[in-house]
């Protein structure tokens, strides 16, 4: 614009208006952040035990959200599709985990044992394989033929697919939440200066951390990961370079589905209850996490997941309460969209012309 001064002069009033708008945006964002910080500090001073307990719960849930959010971010990164069915895939993962631990292995009481660890490991592999293959099948049946279609078409297809998965969950489990599944994880909690920390929380973070590292290693270090990044940048160029685009996209869906399966098992073991429409809620939260961190960025999805988990737990513990849970999450989503559409860690996402 600087090279064309006459256009610059025509646009000058608009530019100052845009600058004023920008200043307004940033100052309101700053005010918002300061307000949230003050609220957090007062909540901490008022009741530090409750605050820290909520924080631990938030970290534990945040790890689960991060696992689901990675599935969104991987798929969005490679074919620019908001995979609405992903949350429901996670729900199927929880149902499958319950099926395999109670019906196949017959876990009928709580408590950790050597057999319990073995059962957990086998269930983890089974859940990852189950959800991964379902996700690949969904891609093959529904999304593959719409890769060249206008964006609205795959998005609506994903909504339809989510309904079909919802139906599968409803048929499998009935409309009532099925509670009281027994866990093979260590029970009980430790107290650290009055702050209650469940052993499960360590466990969730202990499983999630290595999985995320594995994911980062696959995407950044392996040959397949390189191909994934190439396909994400330009499918046609990648094809010309000899990348099998269909297989790479299927592999991405398998990775995302596998993470949803792992999250499903952890959720079933830690929370112990699930219902057929769980996926919709949790999927939206996870997607919000992915967007908050910057969609397409793996680290961003993890950061966003943990942040959303913390915010949700703090809101329930010391904030507005559970009734307003969704409002808080979606308000964050909308604020992020307005102030920083690329998310916290995302790079600029210019609309491809």
């Amino acid at each position, binding site marked *: 614009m600087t090279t064309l001064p006459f256009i610059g002069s025509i646009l000058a009033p608009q530019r100052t208006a845009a600058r004023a708008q920008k200043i307004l945006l940033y100052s309101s964002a700053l005010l918002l952040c300061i307000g949230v910080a003050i609220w957090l500090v007062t909540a901490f001073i008022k009741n530090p035990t409750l605050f820290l307990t909520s924080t631990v719960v938030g970290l534990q849930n945040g790890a689960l959200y991060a696992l689901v959010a990675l599935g969104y971010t991987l798929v969005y990164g490679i074919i620019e599709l908001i995979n609405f069915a992903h949350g429901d895939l996670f729900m199927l993962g929880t149902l499958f985990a319950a099926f395999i631990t109670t019906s196949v292995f017959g876990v009928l009481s709580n408590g950790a044992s050597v057999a319990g660890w073995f059962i957990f490991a086998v269930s983890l592999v089974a859940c990852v394989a189950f959800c991964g293959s379902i996700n690949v099948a969904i891609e093959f049946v529904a999304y593959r033929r719409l890769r060249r279609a206008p964006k609205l078409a795959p998005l609506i297809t994903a909504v339809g697919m989510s309904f079909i998965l919802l139906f599968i969950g409803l048929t499998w489990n009935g409309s009532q939440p099925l509670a009281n599944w027994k866990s093979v994880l260590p029970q009980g909690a430790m107290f650290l200066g009055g702050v209650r920390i469940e052993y499960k929380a360590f466990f969730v973070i202990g499983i999630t951390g290595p999985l995320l590292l594995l994911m980062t290693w696959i995407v950044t270090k392996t040959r397949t990961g390189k191909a994934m990044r190439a396909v994400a940048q330009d499918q046609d160029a990648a094809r010309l370079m000899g990348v099998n685009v269909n297989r790479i996209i299927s592999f991405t869906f398998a990775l995302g589905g596998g993470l949803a399966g792992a999250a499903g098992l952890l959720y079933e073991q830690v929370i112990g209850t699930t219902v057929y429409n769980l996926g919709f809620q949790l999927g939206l939260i996870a997607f919000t996490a992915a967007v908050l961190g910057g969609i397409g960025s793996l680290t961003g999805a993890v950061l966003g997941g943990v942040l959303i988990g913390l915010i949700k737990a703090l809101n329930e513990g010391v904030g507005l309460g559970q009734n307003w849970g969704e409002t808080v999450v979606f308000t964050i*989503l909308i604020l992020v969209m307005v102030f920083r559409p690329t998310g916290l860690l995302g790079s600029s996402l210019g609309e491809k012309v």
Partner: protein
Amino acid sequence: MAADLATVTPPVRPERRLRIRPGMGWPLGLLVAAVVYFIYAYLDRYFRGSIPSGLHNFGTDWLPIIKINEALVYVLAALGLNVVVGYAGLLDLGFVAFWAIGGYTAGWLMTDKISGLNFHFLTAKFTDDHKIVGIHISWWIVLIAAALVCALAGVLIGAPTLRLRSDYLALVTLGFGEIIPEAFYNGDNIAGHNLTNGTQGMQPLDYVRFFTFDKTGKLVWGDLDAFADISRFFIFCGLTALVIFASLRLRDGKLGRAWLAIREDELAASSMGVPLMRTKLSAYGIGAVAGGIAGAAFAVHVDAVLPDRFRFDISITLLAMVVLGGMGNVWGVTIGALVLAWTNSTALPNIQSSLDESGSANGVGIGLAVLGVLVLAAGIAWFVSARKGLIFIYLGVMIATIGILLRIKGPGLSFQFFVFGCVLLLMMLFRREGLIPEARTRLVLREPGRTEAEALGADMEAEAPELEALSDPIVHAAGTTPTGPTDRTTL
């Protein structure tokens, strides 16, 4: 499209006795259907003897007037969503927010909720269960108020978010569709104030004043009580006609053409001088107006405003109506909304209960499973031999699934989610333009992506009958369905 064609003189065809001007088929057909149903409902209510008992039973089971009224409310909302999704191409997954806002506006202005104020205006006479306190305003004015409030809400929601990419926008609207009902749900304690009565909602509403029928079926001017379904049917039909007319006129005007331009290519449209933000915002606001009217109409239809009626399902149902009927085509959306609402509220429960009563769920299940397998086999054979007929494979699997589950689980299982999901999936995979498409939408949605077009190269130079049909409206108006090599892009 339809109104464009109305100005074209149709070719002279003396062999047809009844000649309908092109573009007038849908309005006349719907008008006739509404009049016939109105006469049936009137005779059935007040002159039962004149209706054969078979027809009466059929009507009570399959076309109850309460469900028809509800379907009309869905039509109103779907037409509003059509402005946003079909005309302007902005995906809105939270349209239920406007429905809720319209409903609560009616609740505040027509019940005893706001008991501190005592304000009456042109309202109906009060019976025992209607308290005198609170704001009571005639429903006809509330209708306008709800529309204005929703338009304002649409602009407020749209203003900060409409500059987002299309799929982000879908998510933000979804967020608003969750926040607003939750706010109403928890609204009984906002900083200690009770604004919405929470889960109890607000009821009863004031009666609407309009022409109605007394006990002998005589036309009188009076209050529409709980039994005045026929009058409400008349009012809802009138509102639907108004919204359809407004949609059609808007579409042909300057604003409508700007919407279509944005839908088809945002960049090109803005280069041609279409103000993006203002045009998108107006689509949002005008769509919200219809949503608000639907909300106020729904409130008097159920005589209550309850927060648990505003769920995400309704947003998706409305979207499915728009997609099924044909995005952007008002008649398609109307038919799609009527059919889906009726299927949802009447047909599926009826089929289920008749399966329950007759105990034939097993037999029907086996029959459907066999039919599904046959369709699947035919589809596979066709696909292997000619690379065609993929839709039959999908259909076969779906029918067989329903059949097998009916056999195993019995008729207690609700197939609503499955049917909805399959409708969305099949429509997007095989008929993206909807059942009653608009020629223009078909062209856009079937347009191959850029790289594919480049890959096809010289093929793209081939004849395009659809384009010819567009430039030669007489052929199109005479009912020639354009078919052609565009099928290539679907397989």
